[in-house]
């Protein structure tokens, strides 16, 4: 009989030991999790609480100051204003609506402001460079929550009352009640159109994600989506402009941004812009200095170099960190609870207080934030792979 070479025996013993450790770790994890769940079950039963999601279909009865929810109208899901008589699930949807709308607006504002400030760091003008640096430092080195409180209590709540409001261009009204402007109101219920749009865009995203679709059919799909969106909006096309009217105590109608939403938007957009500026600066800094020198020797001006040589390369470096920044921006909207903005975390907390369902609420929140984060990174990743393909 030939004995196994010593090093093989050793490795066999090692892999055997590895399996045992693996099992031990697995067992320990399972034991801890079971213990926690058992403790939870026991204590919940002790307090007479049963784990269930039935409360989602009970009437909420809580007031929510702004935001829209989904309701069924003639068999169609339609976006409309939230009412206290709605269900808890509809109240949660209102919170989600507010979280998503603030996040989207803030992502756009923060990207525009942040990229400008980041590029400003490379201006040929010394004063502009230093001011962009100061902007970044000031907003990155102070807490976001303090900034939010300052914008809300120090700026927005100090605005004049509605009867002394500032009017800009005769249409936009700025007062302590918020900012109102003429809005576009479709003549037909927009919910149906919006639903079709959402489905079309979702379909487009899904097909886009699959690798088997050729670029030709991709283009066809894009045009189909556009056609769908136009078709869906067509019945609503005779838009009428809805001017805000000064009522007895407040302005009615029009598009309105409450001071809570304005404060949250300002704080989050400006804070994230500072971080985005730093990301942009880091990406441009990380490019070899030879890129600038070569462009200069070719006779390109500084702004041409930036636009045609540096930026196309920087985009690929920036996109992943930008995605992370968008995710943390979305998570930061949960600070809206500090100024009473009814975003998802705030509404869930209120419902949990009313119903005692904090555990269920936490699970819903966890899944929702995970989904939101995944959606953002999916969108950024597909943009990223497109950027990588093109270069």
């Amino acid at each position, binding site marked *: 009989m030939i004995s196994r070479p010593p090093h093989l025996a050793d490795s066999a013993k090692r892999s055997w030991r590895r399996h045992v450790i693996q099992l031990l770790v697995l067992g320990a994890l399972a034991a801890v999790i079971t213990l926690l769940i058992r403790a939870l079950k026991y204590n919940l039963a002790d307090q007479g609480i049963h784990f269930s999601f039935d409360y989602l279909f009970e009437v909420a009865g809580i007031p929510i100051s702004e935001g829209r929810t989904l309701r069924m109208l003639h068999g169609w899901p339609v976006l409309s204003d939230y009412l206290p008589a709605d269900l808890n699930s509809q109240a949660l949807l209102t919170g989600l609506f507010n979280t998503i709308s603030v996040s989207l607006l803030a992502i756009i504002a923060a990207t525009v402001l942040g990229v400008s400030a980041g590029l400003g760091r490379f201006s040929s003008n010394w*004063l502009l460079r230093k001011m962009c640096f100061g902007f970044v430092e000031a907003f990155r080195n102070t807490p976001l929550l303090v900034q939010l409180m300052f914008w809300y209590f120090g700026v927005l709540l100090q605005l004049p009352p509605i009867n002394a409001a500032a009017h800009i261009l005769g249409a936009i009204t700025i007062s302590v009640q918020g900012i109102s402007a003429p809005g576009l109101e479709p003549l037909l219920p927009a919910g149906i159109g919006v639903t079709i749009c959402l489905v079309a865009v979702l379909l487009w995203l899904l097909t886009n994600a699959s690798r088997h679709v050729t670029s030709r059919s991709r283009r066809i799909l894009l045009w189909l989506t556009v056609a769908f969106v136009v078709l869906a909006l067509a019945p609503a096309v005779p838009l009428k402009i809805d001017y805000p009217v000064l009522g007895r105590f407040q302005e009615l109608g029009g598009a309105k941004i409450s001071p809570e939403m304005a404060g949250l938007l300002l704080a989050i957009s400006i804070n994230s812009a500072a971080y985005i500026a730093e990301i942009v600066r880091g990406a441009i800094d990380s490019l070899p200095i030879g890129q600038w020198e070569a462009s200069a020797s070719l006779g390109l001006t500084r702004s041409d170099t930036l636009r045609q040589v540096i930026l196309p390369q920087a985009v690929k470096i920036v996109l992943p960190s930008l995605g992370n920044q968008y995710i943390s921006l979305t998570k930061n909207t949960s600070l809206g609870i500090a100024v009473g903005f009814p975003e998802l975390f705030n509404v869930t907390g209120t419902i949990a207080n009313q119903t005692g369902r904090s555990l269920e609420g936490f699970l819903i929140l966890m899944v929702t934030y*995970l989904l939101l984060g995944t959606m953002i990174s999916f969108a950024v990743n597909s943009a990223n792979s497109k950027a990588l393909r093109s270069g």
Partner: protein
Amino acid sequence: MRSPALSIIFWARRNLFATPKDIALTALLVLLSFWAISHVIYWAVFVARWDVVSDSLRVFLVGTLPSTEFWRAWVALLLVASIVGSVSGLGFAIRPRHMVFGFLLLVFLTVTFVGNNLVALAALSGVMASFAVSWVLVSRLAPSTAYVGLFVTGSLALIVTILAPAGMDRWGGLLLSLIFTLVSSFFILVFGVILAFGRRSSNLALRLFCIMYIESMRSLPLILIVYWIWIAGPLFLPTWNVATVTRGIAGFVVYFSAVAAESVRGGLQGLPKGQLEAARSLGLGEFDINYHVLLPQALRASLPALMGNILDVFNFVPVVFVVGLADFLRTGEMVLASPSYSNRTYEVYAFMLATYFVIGSVLTIVARGLEHHLAKGSRRLSELD
């Protein structure tokens, strides 16, 4: 050789007035910043009434801690100073300009805040002296990092034991913000390192658990985790009466460990593969490789990122309002809530923002200094081979 005046003119021409567009931009920016700065200075000097800050300084600094317990706060601050000093001593040698800056800071704090309170002046000098002494001692004696770690651990434990008899839920103000940051940072560092190594472990179960933990924590808002641990703590451990501060710190540790783990992982990934292979070929065991070879280098490389994480911890402490703790921001709101100061919003926020900005900037500057320091070290290393 150009005269200095001439070179300033050349500099200005190149950096401020190079093209007509630049001239217009410079003029616009100068006007704009002059308008803003003059307004701010006018407000700060002639309009603002700063008595709210000096009158409520105690509330800002320690919250509702009764005056009989102030000595505990001072001792804690002394220890905090020695922790910060000894950690700084690991990275930087003390220079005369640091001493001058420290002395000027002492004079500034005395003139603006302390006034003729001799006890406070003595205590403040003691705090700054303990900072300077621990810095000098560590940078001169250059003890092993493990000893400094032990000292920091001991000091943190001492801080908590000294402050605890005053009632843990009565800690407040800037003191709470500082201690909250320090204690959570300590645990965050420990768990962050464990999670980062767990994420690279060859043990599949451990690796999957660490990845799941890190990724799910990073996708949740901090405020949600803090709030939920505060709510759910009693559901899991009903017989333990855990203080709110402890639950708040637990929430921060649960969330930021995942963040710090990613920073440490960045440092680990940056290590040359030869380090691992060389250690293996020397016949070192897995634990020795990780603890003696990879960890020190990874920590060094990820130090700037970890400093950034500590700044994030400090900047997110105000979130503890959601569990009812009175940190620096909350005490500011408490001051504003009293009727006699209700119209001092700008003064109070200016004071708070300035304080936060100074502390945050110091942390940022230290992190940047460390980055330069490390970059220098690596360059020297590459010159050697």
